């Protein structure tokens, strides 16, 4: 009885994470690493949900790979937006030796997820500079935030004011065929962003299959559900352009964008 009384759990719907401000902390850590120069590499993954063991193994491989500057997670760290799930996922992600920046997924926004996210990570929309890139991260979960996502004015201004940098967008949803409210125009908005001609790369999750394809001048990296292979992508940034490898438990394999 004494042991059980020490393990009392009152609800799964807690909303006060012990770790807070993780986006700001990781952006700061990235800045402290210094300018990586013209050539650097980052990793991207998505939809890890409750796959903590495979996430641990992927992180181990990422750490062993070396030469990685930072990581991006395109959302759905959790399945039900519960604080325990956020903690278990971040317990694995923080084992990386590099900063990891994240965007909120639709599952992360369930239950009290938005409140937990705001404390644990920070803003839903943010951007940061790294090398010659500007990475714009925004909340694309329109069904979970029907009145506020995406923040169109903010997103448009971030992309239009990319200065001389290549703009990389990180969202949970794809730029085409995204979930939308009845009568919504989010896909038209994304088409508009693509037509601005300023996006080098759009990284997203939510879709099951890993894919790499072009929409005009923009390369779209669909991370794919993390799955049993603990899949992630590496993106090499160089003056001559971006190159990609898809990595799983068996190794990393170069991929070229398919025409679309």
């Amino acid at each position, binding site marked *: *009885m004494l*042991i*059980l*009384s*020490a*393990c*009392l*759990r*009152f*609800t*799964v*719907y*807690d*909303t*006060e994470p012990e770790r807070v401000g993780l986006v700001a902390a990781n952006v700061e850590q990235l800045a402290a690493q210094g300018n990586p120069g013209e050539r650097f590499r980052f990793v991207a993954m998505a939809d890890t949900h*409750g*796959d*903590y*063991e495979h*996430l*641990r193994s992927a992180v181990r491989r990422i750490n062993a790979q070396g030469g990685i500057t930072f990581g991006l997670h395109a959302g759905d760290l959790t*399945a*039900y*937006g519960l604080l*325990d*799930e956020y903690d*278990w996922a971040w*317990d*694995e992600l923080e084992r990386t030796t590099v900063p990891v920046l994240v965007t909120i997924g639709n599952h992360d926004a*369930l*239950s*009290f997820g938005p*409140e937990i996210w705001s404390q644990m990570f920070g803003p839903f929309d943010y951007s940061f500079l790294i090398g010659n890139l500007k990475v714009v991260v925004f909340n694309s979960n329109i*069904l979970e935030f*029907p009145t506020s996502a995406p923040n169109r004015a903010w997103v448009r201004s971030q992309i239009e004011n990319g200065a001389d940098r290549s703009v990389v967008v990180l969202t949970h949803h794809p730029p085409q065929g995204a*979930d939308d*409210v*009845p009568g919504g125009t989010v896909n038209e908005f994304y088409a508009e962003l693509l037509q601005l001609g300023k996006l080098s790369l759009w990284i997203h999750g939510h879709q099951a299959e890993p894919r790499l394809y072009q929409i005009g001048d923009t390369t779209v990296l669909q991370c794919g559900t993390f799955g049993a292979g603990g899949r992630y992508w590496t993106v090499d940034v160089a003056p001559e352009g971006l190159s990609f490898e898809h990595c799983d438990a068996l190794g990393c394999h170069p991929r070229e964008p398919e025409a679309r």
Partner: protein
Amino acid sequence: MKTARAMSFLFAFASLGASDPQRRKDETDSTLSLEWLVPDFAKIQTGSYAGLFTSGAGYTFLKRRLDVSLLFGVAPNFHSGNTVYLFEFAADVRPFDLPAGPLRVVPVFIGPGVIYSPNAELFVSVPDRYPTKAYYPPTALMWMMRLGTEFDLVPASASWVKRHGLYAQATVLFRYAELFFNNPGSVSLTDVIGGGIGYRIEF
């Protein structure tokens, strides 16, 4: 809609008392028609994912071998960050109890249940803006299984109280059990078990 649903559920729960004609017949030959509504026991509890402060009542059947209970709990703002309201509906199989003088030891009780939270952030059925009702499972419902033990004191003299009981139980949510089995190296048993302790008074 939620109120009507809740009232229907409460009436159905209270009607459980009428489902076993022997339940009250052993104790009295009273012909009071509403006696079946009177619960057989009440509980106050803390933990087990059902709130910091939780209380409720239930019915017992098959000579105390089956308890069915409905509890209402609160996890207050100062603990959880938000005030969360919780209903717990559960059935416990209590195969036997062991007499030890004035004590009765229920070495084990086990049973399934569901915890429902009516908070606005949660839903049983996804909102209409979603393309399909199967888009998400209910976030307001947590199915669970629990295992516990109880020590009861039978009052020495005749009284309206049949037993005073203290119990401890370990509750596992099905969702967390799945995560534990799929991730044994990342999620530990102590991560997924929710302990609870409580007092049960039978009358």
